[in-house]
């Protein structure tokens, strides 16, 4: 099994606010992330696909194809967007790194037709990131915990 990882970046804004909470509770739970005007990040996404290289091409999947999938499913949807209002897949959810990573997993997983999606790693900042392994059906060993 070989694991290949492709990285992209996108920039987007968001805010954390739960309408079921009072204004004071929102401020207490979410802190400065509750600023009603929102704020933004340069997100870095690392997508890992696992599979056996095709004997004819030597590739797990064509990186060009993966690049196009990431452009269509992630960049076109999320880059330079206000995630709360402009990404329907996040409607009704707080757009935390956890929830965005899970949405990206669900968008990508059915599009990867050669090999299989192994891990989605989403950096909100260099100091905060989330790994998503889907439903964790145990398909293959996870990519290394490090870079």
């Amino acid at each position, binding site marked *: 099994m070989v694991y290949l990882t492709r990285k992209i970046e996108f920039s987007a804004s968001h805010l*954390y606010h*739960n309408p*079921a*909470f009072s204004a004071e509770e929102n401020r207490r*739970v*979410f*802190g400065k992330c509750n600023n009603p005007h929102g704020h933004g990040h340069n997100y870095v996404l690392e997508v890992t696909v696992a599979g056996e290289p095709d004997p004819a091409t030597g590739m797990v999947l064509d990186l060009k194809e993966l690049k196009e999938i990431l452009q269509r499913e992630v960049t076109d949807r999320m880059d330079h967007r206000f995630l709360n209002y402009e990404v329907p897949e996040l409607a009704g*959810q*707080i*757009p*935390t*790194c*956890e*929830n965005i*990573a*899970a949405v990206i*997993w669900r968008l990508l997983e059915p599009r990867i037709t050669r090999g299989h999606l192994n891990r989605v790693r989403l950096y909100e900042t*260099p*100091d*905060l*990131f*989330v*790994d*998503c*392994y*889907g*439903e*964790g059906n145990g398909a293959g060993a996870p990519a*290394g*915990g*490090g870079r």
Partner: protein
Amino acid sequence: MKLHLWRRYRFSASHRLHSAQLGEDENRRVYGKCNNPYGHGHNYVVEAAFSGPVDEATGMIANLADLDAFVEREVVEPFDHKYLNEEIEEFRAHVPTTENICIEIFHRLTRFPRARLERVRVEETGLNSFEYAGEPAGATHE
């Protein structure tokens, strides 16, 4: 959905690699310049991964304010700007290699009450790093 929340922390500390189980010559041979009796220091980076259900009300595995306060109290405050050999109890008995630092930090962070610790990664410098995910079920760790 299986998710791991990773958070990165930093501390700077000094240490000396010297084993009481080895002679002076052997210590010098094994540890080289890291055996310098005056010690030396590093800017350490710690990454910790936690898992658990994502709270629907907050979208979070763990509130970062809670997590940061916990890690600050358990690791950053006791380790930062300290001489690890003398000022961390564990390293009076064990050599403070980054392997052992990684294991000690893992044990400290398993006490976080709001999520399950999955893995700890420690960079001693940008060129070397160590990871520890606990022992497999049934195994014992000395």
